[in-house]
């Protein structure tokens, strides 16, 4: 029995559960059971899967976030899909061979497509179609890259091996596809529209949970290859990373819709995550990435679901609509602001120490200029986060829509996510002691 088994089995069973309350409670129980099994080091019981302490920590964090998503969801079908996302994520995170990685990655992609296919209007349809097309292109690159790798004579059902030129091209091809999904510039443009247009709770799962899972899994699988060809790979990765964070931040700075700002911020964060690949030779790179993933999954999930809680047609929510939120709905405003501050890297919140470790990894890898550019980018991002806070607290109320307010279950979900953001901001002990 492993976390994957229990989640997958429950996902299948959940189709038969009609009662919303029963489904929520049983889903939470399944996630708790999955967490228990993970903590007790039960990996997926198949060849080519393994469970390290770092992965176990992230899986537990992921189950907490998925639990919050379940609490927040109001549709049975989305709850079931959330559980399947959990199962696919576990498989991907525990993959120890290229074959398992590719299969699990595609499984997560397919579950994601099904999730966003739960379409209610034309805007959501547009976002879902863009995501599907982008995903298909990425998949083509990944499969073709794996084929090149295989063609050079390396087995797919083993960890990555040292490659020659042809295999190198193959792995870069696969990485191109993966970077497409991770929204690395120049393959980022689909994400801004998709994240902003699909249902906010789905955007929370995709840009928060699925993306961080993918980033960790890609790092875990491909870091031996990146280390093998560091001199060649590093300049490309540095360029992509700086370009992604800078463009993401500037586009967010000039956006008016809140969901777009968060979507571009998500792209910028993909650039930060890529720093771990840049600094792969540093012992702090994997810790930094793990920490950023933990911080990011809490904040991004909280922010997107809060958007959905604020307004039904959240994709239309503009900065102007947030004016006066601080006086109209103090709880939502406070949680929203604290999570934004975490994204901005304000101390005592997870976003600070995670970015600090990641940037230190870059310094440790003897790349101080890259570290400086990253820090300046982080300062730039504060501009649009502060701008949102300005609308929330400093401007007079002009809310032109009815505030839904946070009901009990979504409030509990938000408090869980807030607890994670604060806990990992202050009590950083666990993350440093584990490796991916």
């Amino acid at each position, binding site marked *: 029995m492993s976390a994957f088994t229990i989640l997958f089995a429950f996902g299948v069973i959940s189709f038969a559960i009609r009662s919303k309350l029963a489904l929520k409670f049983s889903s939470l129980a399944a996630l708790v059971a999955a967490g228990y099994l993970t903590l007790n080091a039960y990996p997926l019981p198949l060849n080519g899967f393994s469970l390290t302490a770092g992965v176990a920590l992230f899986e537990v964090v992921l189950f907490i976030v998925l639990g919050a998503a379940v609490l927040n969801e109001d549709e049975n079908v989305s709850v079931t899909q959330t559980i399947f996302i959990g199962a696919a994520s576990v498989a991907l995170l525990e993959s120890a061979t290229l074959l398992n990685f590719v299969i699990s990655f595609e499984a997560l992609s397919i579950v994601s497509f099904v999730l966003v296919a739960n379409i209610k209007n034309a805007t959501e349809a547009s976002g879902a179609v863009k995501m599907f097309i982008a995903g298909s292109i990425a998949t083509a690159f990944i499969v073709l890259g794996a084929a090149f790798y295989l063609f050079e004579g390396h087995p797919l059902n083993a960890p990555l091996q040292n490659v020659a030129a042809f295999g190198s091209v193959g792995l870069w091809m696969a990485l191109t596809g993966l970077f497409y999904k991770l929204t690395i510039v120049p393959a980022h443009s689909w994400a801004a529209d998709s994240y902003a247009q699909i249902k906010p709770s789905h955007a929370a799962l995709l840009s928060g949970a699925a993306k961080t899972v993918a980033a960790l899994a890609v790092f875990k699988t491909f870091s031996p290859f990146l280390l093998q060809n560091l001199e060649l790979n590093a300049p490309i990765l540095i360029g992509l990373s700086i370009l992604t964070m800078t463009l993401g931040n500037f586009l967010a700075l000039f956006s008016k819709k809140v969901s777009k700002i968060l979507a571009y911020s998500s792209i910028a964060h993909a650039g930060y995550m890529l720093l771990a690949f840049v600094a792969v030779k540093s012992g*702090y790179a994997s*810790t930094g990435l793990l920490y950023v993933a933990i911080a990011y999954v809490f904040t991004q999930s909280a922010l997107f679901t809060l958007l959905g809680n604020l307004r039904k047609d959240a994709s239309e929510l503009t900065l102007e609509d947030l004016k006066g939120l601080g006086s109209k709905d103090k709880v939502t405003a406070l949680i929203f602001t604290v999570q934004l*501050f975490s994204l901005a890297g*304000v*101390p*005592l919140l997870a976003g*600070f*120490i995670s970015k*600090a*470790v990641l*940037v*230190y990894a870059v*310094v*440790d890898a003897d790349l*101080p200029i890259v*570290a*400086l550019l990253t*820090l*300046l980018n*982080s*300062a730039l991002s*504060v*501009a649009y986060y*502060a*701008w949102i*806070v*300005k609308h929330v*607290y*400093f*401007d007079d109320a002009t809310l032109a829509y009815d505030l839904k307010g946070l009901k009990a279950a979504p409030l509990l979900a938000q408090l869980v996510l807030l607890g994670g953001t604060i806990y990992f901001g*202050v*009590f*950083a*002990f666990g993350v*440093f*002691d584990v490796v991916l």
Partner: protein
Amino acid sequence: MSYEYLIFAPIALSLFVYLPTRNLGGTKYVALALFIYMFTQTIELYKQLPAHGYMSLGKFLDVRAFDFVLTLQVDRLSVIMLLLTSVLLILVTLSSWSLAKKPAAYFSLLIFFSGAIFGVFTSTNFLWFFIFWELTLIPMLFLVGIWGAEGRVYAAIKFFLYTHAASMLILLAFFLIYKQTGTFDMTLVKEATLATPALIWWLMFVGFAVKMPLFPFHTWLPDAHVQAPAPISALLAGVLLKMGAYAMIRMVILLLPVQAEKYAWIFLVLGLLTLFFAGFMALYETHVKKMVAYSSISHMGLIAVAMGAMSYASLSAALFEMIGHALIISPLFLIAGFLHQKTHTWEMGDMGGVMQKAPYLSAIFVLAGLGALGLPGTMGFIGEIAILISAIEGFGAWMVVILIGSLISASYLVWTFRRVIYGEIGEKVANADLSMNKAEFFSLLIFATLIILFGVYPQPLFEAINQAFSLYFNTGATL
């Protein structure tokens, strides 16, 4: 005894006190009681300090892997800053006593600020120092942005972004130190073990120069000062700027003395530029609070010149002037804000004759102004003369040019007295009710008392200050 609660209790308390008191009221009493308690605890700390060096207050939240350890240690320098901070927090609370707009949130933010600033002055782990350094920005952002004047939003965001961006340079410097020494503990770092001391020095210098602020990194401050509510302007000038000066002394000078000696001329040049530029700007101003703001910046230039002289005497003079500046400039901000609140104008030309309607208030304004221009018998005189002497010792006789700065100060302050305090009573002043809340007046009275007390009897303060630097300089010289 464990002191970490002096940092984390206020941070946690700020939220917990807000929720029950936002409807019931009484947050100001909690804030006042807390700040008085912090003051008494700081006095206790001062009594326990060893003659030289640091006193450990404990290690907390220990993450060895990244040296992410909250190491709390204090020496004379940090305890003097803590005393100044706690006194100012008490006086700022009293000055805000009659605040009508969202008082629970306002005082809760002040409480949060107190925890963060205590962290800045007690943490000797670079990473935790940085964390507290950045945390001070959050309450300030809201205090300026919500309770400020008409242009408050622009000023608050500008202040936040400007200083945050500068902090990134400081963080990079700390990371380089950790990379090269393997520790974030500032008491363990030795300059000789650093591979790139010059780069680290420059990163920290620019980062802290923004906070002080020194010309040309000062542009965030006039806006913040002018738009902030008067008590917060006092806190900005009295504590936040001093935080920059404290860090400059602690890290740029005492931690990296060789580089500091090498680049002492930078302090001198930027200090003089700040002194004269801000002085001339103050002279040009007709906006009473802007005039005080530029006067404040000008005095920070003087402090930078003293830092540049890099001697036992000059650093003592700089620290004395830092305290003097905090106590002198705060009542000027408070009275300027009070006059605006009552007369609804910032223009000095629209004021005049305040002495006739509020003689005690006017007397305190004049006293603080005379302190700012360095009149004998006030703290300002002691600080400025000490800086002049040490600067002449350090850079030569041509340092008498500093006196031109004092002359400029005298010009704009005397002219301000003429336009605001004396002369014909202006229409807006005539129509205004200039009666002041007792708590607010009491706080001004304490400022006035301290300005005179340390002006005529500076010895106890100088003794404390001298001991703050005796560890770093092998000299018996005292001021």
